């Protein structure tokens, strides 16, 4: 594998065309999870896969644009979390590049890191915009519990995001890892952006 630097990934046409696909995968992941009545969202599989395939920049773009699009077509509230989604793409892309995509165990670590980063970034957003809650019943119940036991708002809010994000992101990264590992070679090469053409 001839990867150059992760930041100099040229935004090739293939990589750009991957972004709409990633957002579509996010969307269908969520629909299928709903269809099967799974207790998770699984709505960032596309973003995570895009990062694994084409690096942190494309991953981050997929995340950000995902929430903008969702905001202007379904629910404006979700635009607020564009930053969180972008960070998810960034973290996965960087960790994948640093060699953390070796096996299921390391994938779980990525999922954990992603979940924590997502919770850390969401916390100030939640505090600023809606006083610390997420609108998720379980998370908000946890928030109420913490606040009523005299924990500071920021910690309660972080706890709220943490219980919402971490399990979902771990599941998301594991699923994405299995899919990624199963991809044929010829899918990887076009997004890799290696510039070399050998002479024959």
């Amino acid at each position, binding site marked *: 594998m001839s990867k150059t630097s992760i930041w100099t990934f040229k935004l090739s046409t293939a990589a750009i065309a991957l972004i709409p696909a990633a957002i579509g995968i996010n969307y269908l992941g969520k629909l299928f999870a709903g269809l099967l009545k799974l207790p998770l969202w699984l709505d960032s599989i596309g973003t995570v896969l895009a990062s694994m395939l084409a690096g942190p920049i494309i991953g981050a773009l997929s995340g950000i644009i995902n929430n903008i699009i969702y905001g202007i077509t379904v629910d404006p509230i979700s635009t607020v979390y564009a930053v969180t989604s972008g960070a998810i793409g960034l973290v996965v892309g960087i960790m994948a590049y640093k060699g953390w995509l070796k096996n299921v165990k390391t994938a779980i670590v990525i999922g954990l890191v992603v979940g924590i980063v997502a919770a850390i970034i969401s916390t100030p957003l939640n505090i600023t915009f809606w006083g610390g809650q997420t609108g998720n019943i379980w998370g908000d119940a946890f928030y109420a519990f913490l606040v009523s036991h005299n924990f500071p708002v920021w910690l309660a809010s972080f706890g709220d995001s943490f219980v919402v994000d971490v399990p979902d992101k771990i599941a998301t990264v594991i699923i994405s890892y299995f899919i990624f590992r*199963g*991809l*044929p070679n010829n899918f990887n090469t076009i997004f890799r952006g290696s510039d070399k053409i050998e002479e024959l």
Partner: protein
Amino acid sequence: MNSIEVTNLSFSYTPEIDVLKGIHLKLDGETTAIVGQNGAGKSTFVKLLKGLLRPTEGEILLNGKNTKDYTVASLAKEIGLVFQNPNDQIFKNTVIGEVMFGPLNIGQDEQKAKEKSIEALEKVHLEKYLETNPYDLSLSERKLIAIASILSMDPNIVIFDEPTMGQDYAGKETLKEIIFELRNQGKLVLCILHDMDFAAEVFERTIVFNQGKVLIEGPSRDIFAQKEILEQAYLEQPYVAQIADELGLKGSYATDEDLLRALKEE
């Protein structure tokens, strides 16, 4: 003998528009081609047979079993349907894994599933690609994998939706072998086709769908001789029939041999 009996079958998504209307058919034994323009109701018909859609009216009996009384999953052993686009089903990273998915679902054990799958892959001549990723093969090869993934479940009735699309000469020959073999095993084979040459050459019986109804059905040779009726359904005659027509020969021709025999006699 396997059989499909369809009585007074109608289907519609919305009350205003009938997709299928009053279909009566009895199929047993013979290989059958289903032809007709896009939107004539062919795909809807086979989805009804498969139990993926429920009739608005009428009944479907598969070997005496009324499809109403069974779930799709429980019918999987009785009737197999190969969809047009293999990309809508392929999700495993090896060919063998993909083909084994169905057999494992219907309760075959690992070893039997593997045996059946390898057998099915031999039939489509892809046995040397067991461990290959399906997406490292071409679309036409993936179509063959989809076919194998149904054959491995060993259903009594097999339906193909547009199997010849995008296949080259060798691919079509492979399909031909599979259809003949299934017939010899006593299975009932149905096939939606756009390729009239293939329909005429390979299938004993042909059903012409037009606007949700069966326009005509009978032995393929007779059907493909009827230029006017085919034109009514916006279909072309097979090339051999066209050649016969151009040369002013009377009668019905479905294969090269038919035509050659007639020409030599002359």
